[in-house]
């Protein structure tokens, strides 16, 4: 059975990883604006994710301006897929329990 991932239980980290899962790479600024975080808050979360090998950080220059790009590693993709399966199992179990024990019916 799929297991929940401790790191991805945090909604902000889950939002970042979900965003990156649909991309080959994304600019730091794009991720920051999409998840509505400050530079420092995103930087902190990215450090945690990259230390655990979920996210890869690449730095470079476009003209004279420094840029940072983020991408999800294969480990990150696998962990997200497993986390999603675990979440789906929880939601599915609640649905099937609800179907077996409709509201108002007493459970022995």
């Amino acid at each position, binding site marked *: 059975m799929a297991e*929940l991932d*401790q790191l991805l*239980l945090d*909604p902000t980290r*889950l*939002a*970042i*990883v*979900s*965003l990156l*899962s*649909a*991309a*080959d*790479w*994304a*600019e730091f*600024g*794009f991720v920051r604006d*999409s*998840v509505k975080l400050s530079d420092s808050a995103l930087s902190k979360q990215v450090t945690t994710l990259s230390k655990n090998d979920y996210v890869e950080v*690449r730095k*470079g220059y*476009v003209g004279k301006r420094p*840029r940072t*790009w983020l991408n999800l590693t294969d480990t990150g993709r696998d962990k*997200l897929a497993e986390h*999603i399966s675990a*979440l*789906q199992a*929880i*939601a599915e*179990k*609640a*649905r099937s329990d609800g179907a077996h024990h409709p509201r108002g019916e007493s459970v022995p």
Partner: protein
Amino acid sequence: MNEPTPAEAAAALRAVHEGKEQVIKSASGSRWMWIISGLVAFLYSAANDLFPAERGWLGLPVVAMCLVLALSLRTRVGGTLLGRPVMVSSRNLPLTWRLLRMAPIFGIAIAVALIIQLFHVPHGGIYYGALAGLYIIFLGPRFQLWVLRRQNRD
């Protein structure tokens, strides 16, 4: 580990879907790129039709432009220079769906070729270029979104 409640799990799944959707929507972000591509398709087809003797070299700048554009969009620096802060992944997209992205252009080509053949319409290249250009400008971004959403759903 605190297991999320069913409501929290459902909310987290919604957040995952929304995150992916945000990236997919950005795939059609650079409107000017679709407009330029549509105009190039039209001008190339029209020029081929009007100046058949120049066909030999007319394709070279178009092929070069397509190559530069395609390679630039695949790289981080190139994408940033072209105003694309994110490269949408199509790794989960089956080969048939990848090929389907080109299908409308070939469909238009076959339809125009049939009409030209049946009704002996002159300057078919111009009509094909106009239709292909209009498709790229107006329907290209929508079709791209539709195809990319397939992998989000599957």
